[in-house]
């Protein structure tokens, strides 16, 4: 099985997000960048499938130089090779523009299965995997918590939780799977793994290497444009419920929820 994993680098979820002076981006000065948590599930699942069935795991990331850290993390976990599309013109694209870059990088690589995170925890778009499946014309299995490859390696059966139910779906391979928490527990890179990762192949690609023109990708190639970023709506200051006894407090709270907030 040849398995590809798409990786995005995102601000650590601990980050306090601050809007920059231009009002369209975030302040990046003090951000700790990490692999998107959902992509870690993809790396782990790819490694488990490889350990069981053999094959190769290739990780792909698009973005500036810092993205190498996340690719090296995946290599240290056990991935075999990495592809880094490092070209400023490829950055800042909408889902389709970004998928176009990934598709171009993926086309020359043989693959049976592709993993993407079900969403990136920065822009919460949940679109790149779907767009990539369209561009590569392969089945899409989204937000998956269990993956089983058939014995003859031509099919995949997956589990997908939806509102009020769980779907078990089956699809032919090759296919693209987007990963959900619960799929697995990603391993930590071991020290020998980290040492080995330094010697594993990491190919750096420019847009020209992928046969893409700058106007097809990044912000220039995007249909959706960002007008502004604003902080979340302010909440009005809350009330701490006072009372002589816990009983009194509970009664007062329920009264306020009914009469003041009119929520119940």
């Amino acid at each position, binding site marked *: 099985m040849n398995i590809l994993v798409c990786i995005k680098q995102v601000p650590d979820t601990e980050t*306090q997000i601050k809007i920059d002076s231009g009002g369209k981006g975030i302040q990046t000065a003090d951000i700790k960048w990490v692999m998107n948590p959902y992509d870690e599930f993809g790396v782990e699942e790819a490694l488990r499938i490889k350990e069981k069935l053999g094959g190769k795991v290739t990780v792909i990331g698009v973005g500036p130089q810092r993205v190498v850290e996340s690719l090296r993390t995946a290599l240290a976990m056990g991935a075999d090779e990495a592809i880094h599309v490092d070209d400023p013109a490829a950055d800042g694209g909408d889902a389709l523009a970004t*998928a176009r870059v990934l598709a171009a990088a993926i086309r020359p690589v043989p693959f049976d299965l592709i993993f993407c995170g079900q969403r990136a925890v920065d822009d919460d778009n949940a679109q790149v995997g779907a767009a990539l499946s369209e561009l590569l014309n392969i089945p899409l299995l989204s937000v998956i918590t269990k993956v089983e490859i058939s014995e003859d390696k031509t099919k995949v059966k997956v589990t997908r939780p939806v509102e009020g139910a769980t779907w078990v779906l089956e699809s032919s391979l090759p296919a693209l799977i987007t990963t959900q928490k619960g799929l697995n527990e990603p391993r930590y890179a071991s020290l020998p793994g980290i040492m080995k990762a330094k010697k594993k192949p990491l190919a750096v690609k420019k847009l020209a290497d992928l046969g893409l023109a700058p106007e097809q990708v990044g912000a220039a190639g995007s249909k*959706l444009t960002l007008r502004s970023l604003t902080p979340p709506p302010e*909440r009005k200051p809350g009330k701490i419920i006072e009372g002589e006894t816990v009983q009194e407090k509970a009664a007062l709270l329920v009264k306020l929820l009914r009469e003041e907030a009119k929520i119940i």
Partner: protein
Amino acid sequence: MAKGILVIAEQRGGTLRKISLEMVSEGRRLADQSGQPLAAVVLGHGIAEEAKKLAAYGAETIYVADAPELKYYTPEAYTTVIANLVKAQEPDIVLGGASQQGKELAAKLAARLETGLAMDCVGLRLEDGLLIARRPMYAGKVYAEVVCETARPQMATGRPNVFSILEPDSSRSAEVVNLEVALKPEDLRTSLVEELADQTGKVDLTEAVYIVSGGRGMKDGSNFIILEKLADVIGATVGASRSAVDAGWRPQCDQVGQTGKVVNPNMYIACGISGAIQHLAGMGSSKVIVAVNKDPDAPIFQKADYGIVGDLFEVVPLLEEEFKKIM
């Protein structure tokens, strides 16, 4: 010239989902503002009668794609049917719900149509014919306004429990148009093997009107029974913080926060949750937030509309009693 608004309605097991009514209602509001016609499309098998219900919420045309291959949703087949409709009708705007199914379908459709999609929106408005979509990013740590200037249709999905449902008006009628369904083998590469209904019978966290959530302060998984009991009284769904999930007290699907579910209930009751930034991001747009925590300095109180400083093991059962009196 593109014109009209098309809403992708969602049914499961032959019944329209609530999100479909929310999005048809929002489509109606936008159509009234701009004087455009409103259409809806429903896919499935044996769903023609159910689809007609959308007329009462303001759909003037209802497209029905009824075929055995469409009985269960699969992204390829549904994308192909809707993409064909969009190419034929050229609507200016296509709306869908940001449900599990709706997000996947809209993302695939937008890529197929090579247009821009604003995902999981909490506000939609029209400005000079442009659909301005407001959507949270970083799980709600910032809000973005996005627009699709040139490509058509303009697409957006709406977050569940955000857009209010219009009072159904049974005097409204709609033209029902049956769509020809012609699928290729490549549209049928994915199939549903089985659908397992949740045993809890509870509304999903992302669609819940009330949520009672527990964190590290619950001390043990078995203690969640007191939250379950409170939830039963008010008809809430039980959620959990990441630490409660990581401790193995609750299943992964219960996690609220930046790496779990982003929720938007009318009321969120946080019990024994200190309020890590990732959690606050995931529930910060709840209409009313109630916090119960014994630490008066817990960050959750800065987000809460109402707080009780106290031992949740004392407070929660008393809240249950008090709610019982009024329900």
